[in-house]
Each structure stands twice: as C-alpha cells, then as structure tokens.
C-alpha cells in the first residue's frame, strides 16, 4: 500500500517487465496471507522479503486467520470506490479466487509479463484452472498441494487404502474418526472426495456445477455421511471446528485418522512433536484431489508493480527450491522440471526428503483436479441441512 490515490484513478497497465521493475522500485507490497503457519511466515519474512528488498521492493506480510478477510477487504474498498487499495498481493485459491473474479476484484492478464512464468508448464491443468475457474492471468502460481489423509500407525496397523475403506473403518471403530465441519476448507474437500467416491470415481462427476448434476451425485454422498455419522467422534453430534481442531483430537489420541490439504506442514508438525511420531501418510488407491495456490493482485492495489516483482520472484527456481525444503516450508513447487537448466534442477535434487511425507509424485499419483468452485457452497449447505442438524 502507499499514499492514498485519487478515487476513480485508472490502474496503470504495463507493457513490459522493465516498466514494472522501474515502477516497483521503492514500493511497499502488503502481502495478505494466512498467518497461522509458522513456517510459512518464517519463509516470507526471512527468505522472500530479503530477496524482494534486493530488488528494491519492501515486502510486508499481513497475517490473517482467513483468506476471506482479505477478499472482503478488497471488495469493501472497491465498493467504496477506493483505488488506493491496502491489499497488494494475496495468497489465494479456489473459492476465494472465484469470489474475487465474480466481483472483478483482481487485476488480470499480468502474469505473462513475469519472466519466471516461462518456467511453468502452461498446459498444467492445475495452473490453468483454479477450482474450475480459469486463471486467465489473474494470479501467478505459487505452490501445489495435495489432499492427504494421515493416520496414527500406533493405533492402526492395517490402514484402509480407499475412501470407502476409511468410512468402513470408521463404522467398525466408533468414535475414532471425524472430519472438520464444512465450510472449513479441509472439511469441504473431504465432502467432495466422498461424493467422488460414492459416484464411483472422479471421472463420473463433471467439473462444472449444475443443479442436475448436483441432484444426481450429492444425495449418495450425503447418505453415506449420514450413515457413518453415528460412528464418528461424539456420535456425530458435533464436528471439529476446523482442521486445527481435528489435529488436536488426533494429537490427543481421540481419533486415529486425520486429513489435510497442506501435507507440506506434516513434516514440521511431527518434528516439533505437535503430532505423534507414529503419524503416517495414507495414500489412497483412487488418488486424491490436488490443487495449486496462487498469488493474486487486487485490481485496486496501490503497488501493483511491486506485487508483480514479488510474484515473479516467488516463481524463481531459487525461491521455489528454498520453499520446497521441508526444513523451511516444504511446499511443492509449481515449476516444470523439464524447463529448468541443470543448475536449477540440482537445487531441487539436493533437497532432503521428508521422513513423513512422500514425494509429490507419489502423493499425486492418480490425482484429480478440483471441481468447479460452485460445487463448494452447494455441498456445504446441503451437508449442514442434512447431516449436521440431524443429530
């Protein structure tokens, strides 16, 4: 953010990255991102921000508990007609991105300017669509993630290998399984995975949302969840508020299986003993959903050039490699190895392996893409109506 500009000012457009660099010099970029991830915070503060400073950009991290807060802020500012927005860059994906797009809150068409975009695979579906919403150059990829289950190997010797198996295991072990209540991000994903599973596979459900397809596929999933509910933790009378609450249950031995959309964090959680060292990742035969997360620039950002510089920097092999180090953050890179030169490749090859989390290749075997964002609220609301309130 910077000096308040006049309302109604047209956002500057840039023709070349040189222009961007010129403009960016001396700007202060406010990066709004979820602040609950200590490793993430440390990476931005200690690795990314110094690198940005070398390019003449001051990077300031604004910690928030929920990305929706950032989107709300941008929307409010736009509603008020402010062009000197306080948000310059957001770590975003999925529904929040889609919301912003609906509201035309993002600056678009700027990613092609970034030199480092050339290192990504332009055809990678994860980078093309964000939860079914075309990216259209409105956000620059940052890292990839894979929905992952994990279990306590001290309690379960013979873990299930499919989602159906997990539900069956839950029925056989009353009180030992639960999932976060949607609209928690992780809980929502679990819901969709169950739907894909009850539908007979990811390919059975079209990515695009329509009421017909919803009516066709959702009921089976909801039935399955309703059926398993009595066997869940607390008999399904209540659900953990969010992924963090589920993790606490897992750590305290209340449940034996948990899940996350950010497997990168598991390494550190186990290392710091926040999770038991018997924690093991559970890979499903049918694969799980994967996504990419991005850095987006609001249309009214007051320092867009600086934001672009940071986004470009974040895509550099050095930063991507540093970020992929499980000791730093462990986030899966978005770069296409094929496009890197040998030196750059070696940066990644030299990374230590995580003792808990398998490699991205292994995790993303049989992976499928996210459904369109419209699915998310529809399913969440249906779950609230039919599963959450029935007990």
């Amino acid at each position: 953010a910077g000096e308040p500009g006049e309302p109604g000012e047209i956002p500057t457009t840039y023709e070349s990255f040189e222009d961007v660099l010129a403009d960016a010099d001396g700007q202060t970029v406010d990066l709004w991102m979820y602040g609950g991830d200590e490793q993430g915070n440390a990476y931005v503060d200690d690795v990314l921000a110094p690198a940005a400073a070398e390019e003449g950009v001051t990077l300031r991290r604004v910690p928030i508990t929920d990305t929706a807060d950032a989107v709300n802020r941008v929307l409010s500012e736009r509603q008020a007609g402010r062009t000197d927005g306080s948000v310059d860059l957001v770590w975003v994906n999925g529904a929040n991105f889609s919301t912003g797009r609906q509201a035309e809150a993002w600056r678009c068409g700027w990613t092609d300017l970034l030199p480092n975009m050339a290192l990504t695979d332009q055809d990678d579906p994860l980078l093309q669509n964000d939860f079914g919403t075309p990216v259209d150059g409105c956000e620059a990829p940052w890292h990839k993630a894979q929905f992952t289950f994990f279990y306590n190997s001290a309690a379960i010797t013979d873990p299930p290998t499919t989602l159906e198996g997990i539900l069956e295991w839950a029925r056989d072990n009353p009180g030992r399984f639960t999932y976060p209540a949607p609209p928690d991000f992780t809980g929502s994903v679990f819901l969709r995975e169950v739907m894909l599973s009850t539908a007979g596979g990811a390919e059975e459900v079209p990515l695009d949302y329509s009421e017909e397809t919803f009516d066709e596929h959702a009921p089976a999933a909801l039935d399955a969840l309703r059926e398993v509910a009595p066997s869940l933790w607390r008999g399904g009378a209540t659900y953990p508020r969010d992924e963090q609450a589920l993790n606490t249950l897992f750590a305290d031995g209340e449940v034996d299986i948990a899940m996350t959309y950010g497997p990168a964090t598991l390494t550190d959680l186990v290392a710091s003993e926040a999770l038991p060292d018997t924690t093991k990742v559970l890979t499903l035969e049918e694969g799980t959903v994967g996504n990419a997360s991005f850095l987006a620039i609001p249309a009214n950002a007051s320092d867009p050039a600086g934001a672009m510089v940071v986004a470009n920097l974040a895509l550099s092999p050095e930063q991507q490699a540093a970020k992929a180090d499980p000791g730093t953050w462990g986030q899966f890179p978005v770069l296409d190895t094929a496009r890197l030169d040998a030196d750059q490749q070696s940066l990644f090859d030299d990374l230590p392996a995580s003792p808990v989390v398998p490699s991205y290749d292994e995790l993303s075997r049989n992976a499928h893409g996210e459904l369109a964002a419209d699915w998310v609220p529809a399913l969440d609301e249906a779950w609230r109506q039919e599963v959450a309130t029935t007990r």
Partner: protein
Amino acid sequence: MNHPLPGPGTGPEDHQGDTGESRSQRPGVDRDAGRERGLVYRRSVLLALPAVVPVVLVLGVSLVGASAQSLGLMPFIGPPVLSTRGWAGSAGELAKSATVSAYIAAASTVLSLVVGFAVAVYILAAPRMGRLVAGLSAATIPIPHLIGAGAMGLLLSDSGFLHRLLGMPAAFPALVGGPWWIAVISEYVWKESAFVALVVIGSMSRSMTGLCDSAATLGATAWQRIIHVVLPLSVPALAVSALIVFVYTFGAYESPWLLGPTSPEPLPVRAVRLFGSVDLDARPEAMATALVSVAASAAAILAGVGILRARRNVR
C-alpha cells in the same frame, strides 16, 4: 423575579432535580422556571452531543449499510436488486438461531449475576482473602473473550486439562461442543462475573458499611444483610450489568464459535459464517441474521432501560 441561572458545566441536580413542576404560585415564576428548564435542558443536550453524535453516526451508517445489504441493495457485484430472500429464505433457521442465542445469553446472564454478586459480597465481607479475590477477579477483566474461550477450551474439552486431571474417565460429559453449550456459558460466566463484580463494587457507596452495621444491630444475620441491604442497594448496578452481559453474550461470536457444537448455530456464528461464505449471494442472508441479532439486543436494551428508569423514579 429572577432565578439564579445555573452556571455552565454543572448538572441541574444542583436544584433538587424537581425543577419546575412544583413552582406554580405566580405566573411570573412559571415563565421563569420554564425558561430556565429550557436552559438546563439545552445544556444537557449539548453535553450529550459529543457522545451521541459519533454513536448515532456510526450505528446509523452501519445499520443502513447492513439493511441495504440484507435487502440486496448493496451487492459487491452486479446491479442492486431489491429482494427479501435474505430474510424470508431462512426464517425457520433464523428463529432457531435466535432461540439458541437467547438461551446462551439468558443462562450466561443469570449465572454471571449470581457469581458476580457473590464475588462482590465476598470481597466486601472477607478482608484479607477478599483482596486476593478482588485482585484476581479484576485481573480476568483484561482477558479478551477470544483468549478466554481458548483457555476454557483447553480446560474443558475432551482430553482437556480437567478431563486429564480426573484421570480421563470415559463418562466425561461433552462440555465443549456439547448440546448444552456448557463451555460457552462457562466462559461467559467466568469473564462476565468479574465484570459484574467490578460494577457492583463500584456502585456501592461508602455508607454501605454503616448500613450493614445498622442492619446487624437490628437483628439481620450476615445472610439477611446481604439479601436485604447489599442486594437491594446493588440492584441498579446489577440491572445495568445484566443488560450489558445479556446483550454482549447475545451478539458475541468468539466463544460459541470456538466452544459450541456445529449445529444449531447461534445468530452471530451463523452471520459470520454466511458473511465469510465464498458465495457472494450469502451476504444478504448474513446481514439479515446480524440484523435479527441487533433487533433482539435493541429490544432487550429498550426493555432494560425502561425498567431501570421506572425503578429509579420509584425510589
């Protein structure tokens, strides 16, 4: 005949409070009194302005904004379209949420008053230990509800501190996320009772000790002194704090969100969830929910202030 005009800055209580009504012997008197009452009145209004104006402005803007959003008149995207969907679409859920909120607020208020008054009396009655309790109780006031709720969660949740202290019995009740909102209410009572005690002690005049002595020599036991002297003299303070506690717990979000069950949802939890929803169409509904909470609280305040002032006139 001229009456002394009250100087600037003092309240009209200098004049026994019953200005006007009783002075009607002479026509001139009435006129003067009337003029003066006008002055007192105008000065009081001036006094009120610095406080009232920001409140009215901020609340007015907020309420108008919220109402407009609830009616679809202030969408983030697209043209404004008047619609009552935010209200009518979920009337049943709104009612259910309102009931839950009312339950939490009522239970928390009653218990806070009881505990708060007990703390206040204890502080008055026990010289040494009372000071400790007073200090500790005052020390809980700075704790934000969010932290209080977190702490209460650590204490009361399944395999929380209490459960562990008791040796992890299987029959440990569902305090956090259970059907009776016990952890939520505990947190409110824990925090708000300290507030009640603060207000009650603050309202006690110096003569309280003398009056208790007086009551004792008239045969009132310690308990009777509390019930028949301390309690009635604390009623105004208790009433005001009851109002504040009720309205606060009715509209607060942190505790029920952290410590309550997934369903049913109190009004504020529902409003926040809907407001944060990725579906922009949920905003009108969020605002409608918030406005129901506002309306209920406003009704409570209206009733409370009415009762309070009526009581004061009786006294």
